[in-house]
């Protein structure tokens, strides 16, 4: 049995080395994705352009406007009228407008209204701007109270403490999450494609009439792609730690153990897809829609699962990447927190049993 398995594995490796597209998916794609996400994508907003309109220019108004000028979160532009500022906002030059009315300096001290007009099209940025404006405003209130020798008029004040990621660097959660996407790509998409290729070319039937058993065929596929996937993982972790300087607070051994478990689950998904789709084109499509996109959108990698509609939340329970992303974010940023790792690892075990079972059932049926 060992010699037969060895032969199959050798054949698979030769195919991997000879076909540039496998190498591209296994190593080039992780590289491109990590570079894009590590350098290209950021949710950390600084220097957000905002417009300030002072309907009447005087010391009070300039003093108030200076809070935006001094904040590193904003880059301020001044406009003469609300109208010209509005045009700038519609064409995307600024994200918000602060309007100080004619009577600002007369009413200051008694509820003087300041208008903050946000461009709601990009609602995430709008919320962030609104939060930063509040922060800058708070500082002005303190300064103003100190200048007039008055006690500060904010009764309750928030002190925030962010655990695990105190500077709120978005890279620190995007890069670990991306590892799940990359492993899905290698485990599920690549495996689905290569198994479908065997069916498409008719070499699978040929294999099955040899003394090789179905179990050996599946193992002969799993072992090479498992190794390829672990190679992709090592590359991703190395880039995360040394290029992007993401902290790894948990143990690297737990990381590799959890990743092997997820990779096995992903390979199971790939095998299952190829057992229902015979052609490469259809298998590729199903793998992209059934595994790659959900790993992006439904895994909690970018979007908060708790905020999704109930039915979508329900669907996320069968998305393996969901459990892996939870493990990754905890291992990288929080540490070996077993109460998070163990239940999620358990779910991965269940899912892999499910997918291998389904594959087994489907392949046997086909042979009858």
């Amino acid at each position, binding site marked *: 049995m060992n010699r037969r398995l060895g032969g199959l594995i050798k054949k698979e490796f030769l195919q991997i080395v000879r076909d540039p597209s496998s190498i*591209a998916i296994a190593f080039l794609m992780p590289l491109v994705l990590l570079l894009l996400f590590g350098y290209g994508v*950021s949710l950390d907003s600084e*220097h957000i352009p905002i417009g300030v309109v002072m309907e009447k220019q005087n010391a009070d108004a300039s003093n108030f406007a200076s809070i935006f000028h001094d904040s590193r979160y904003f880059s301020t532009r001044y406009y003469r009228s609300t109208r010209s500022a509005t045009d700038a906002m519609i064409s995307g030059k600024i994200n918000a407008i602060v309007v100080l009315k004619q009577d600002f300096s007369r009413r200051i001290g*008694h509820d003087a209204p300041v208008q903050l007009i946000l461009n709601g099209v990009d609602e995430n940025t709008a919320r962030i701007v609104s939060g930063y404006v509040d922060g800058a405003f708070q500082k002005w209130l303190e300064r103003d109270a100190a200048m007039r020798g008055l006690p500060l008029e904010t009764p309750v004040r928030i002190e925030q403490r962010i*655990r695990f990621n105190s500077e709120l660097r978005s890279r620190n959660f995007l890069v670990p999450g991306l590892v799940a996407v990359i492993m899905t790509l290698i485990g599920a998409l690549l495996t689905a494609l290569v198994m479908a290729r065997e069916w498409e070319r008719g070499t699978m039937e040929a294999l099955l009439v040899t003394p090789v058993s179905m179990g050996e065929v599946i193992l002969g596929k799993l072992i090479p792609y498992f190794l390829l996937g672990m190679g992709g993982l090592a590359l991703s972790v190395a880039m995360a730690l040394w290029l992007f300087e993401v902290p790894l607070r948990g143990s690297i051994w737990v990381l590799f153990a959890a990743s092997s478990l997820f990779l096995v689950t992903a390979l199971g998904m790939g095998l299952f897809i190829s057992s229902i789709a015979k052609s490469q084109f259809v298998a590729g499509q199903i793998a992209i*829609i059934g595994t790659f996109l959900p790993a992006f959108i439904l895994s909690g990698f970018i979007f908060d699962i*708790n905020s999704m509609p109930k039915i979508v939340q329900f669907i996320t329970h069968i998305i393996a990447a969901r459990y892996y992303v939870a493990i990754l974010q905890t291992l990288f940023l929080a540490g070996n927190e077993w109460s998070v790792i163990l239940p999620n690892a358990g779910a991965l075990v269940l899912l892999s049993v499910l997918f291998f079972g389904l594959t087994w059932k489907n392949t046997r049926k086909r042979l009858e």
Partner: protein
Amino acid sequence: MGKRIFALMVKEFLALLKDKKGRLVLIVPPLIQLLVFGYAATFDLKHVPFAVYSEDKGSVSRDLVAAFSGASSFSLQAELANEKSISSLIDKRQVLMVLRIGPNFSSSLLQGRPSPIQIIVDGRNSNTAMLVVNYSGTILKKFNEAWASSHGGSIPVRIEARAWFNPNLESRWFFIPGIVGLLTLLVTMLVTALSVAREREQGTFDQLLVTPMSPVEILIGKALPGFLIGMLEATVITLAAVFWFHVPLLGSILTLYVGIFLFLLSAVGVGLMISSIAVTQQQGLLGAFFFMVPAIILSGFATPIRNMPTIVQDITLINPMRYFLIMLRGVFLQGTPFPLLLPELWPLAAIGIVCLAIAGWLFRNRMY
């Protein structure tokens, strides 16, 4: 000439739609993606589980806790009895935030001294953490204003925030116009990236080149099917956005279609260019995948282009998706008039013409 182009076009449509799977791939996946993306892709926080650790027994702290638990997006999970459980609840991901109120909160507030409260937030997902901080700030601001006005204080300046174009700051309004662009790109690329590669693989492209058809005619015949299918796809998804997801379409339909037309010109151009470089269908598909992933990530679809490093921002200038998304969101939500969209429209036209010209040149000059 018209008759020859028409014949080639009919043949292209037959090649695409002849089998059931080919037809399904064009229709079912985009609809699934629209539904899943549309419901799952949101930065709104609708459910923030939080806990309270209050050492204060006064009524003011109860009012403050009520202000938080009464907010629609916050839900109170537990009232903690000791300090130790704060970090363990957060580490286990049972709550996103803990609100901590010190022992003298009520008494010092009643004596007119400002009192701090502390919020401890899970920073594993930094975007969610920032939103939790912002939401808390908003709740507290209202609480402070109510407190100040009921205790005779006055606030020197009050900020009135309003969001234009998306008054309730619904994430869905931001993402769904983006999805119109995303799916239009996806389908158009799938159709065109395979069209020349398929003929190259089967060897029929050489035959096409020796017919009386000129390269320009071949180009038009190859481009039109992708163009028409992309147009249909964009129309269906726009209809779904407006009538299913109720995203407002404020701008003129004519402006919208001019934008779609120019975007399709560039998408078809890129697709045909990839297709005429590829030798096999698999290479065509992979090429399309390698183009689409960066095109989507660097388009401002989920994260603002403004946050990217300057050099990456310069790269986005050649990305047709960038212009298309600005245009789509402008027409949908802002009702941006045509003249203000010219800066987005001419680059689309330029990219389209350049890519189509290169594709046409490659037809003749890349021979196997």
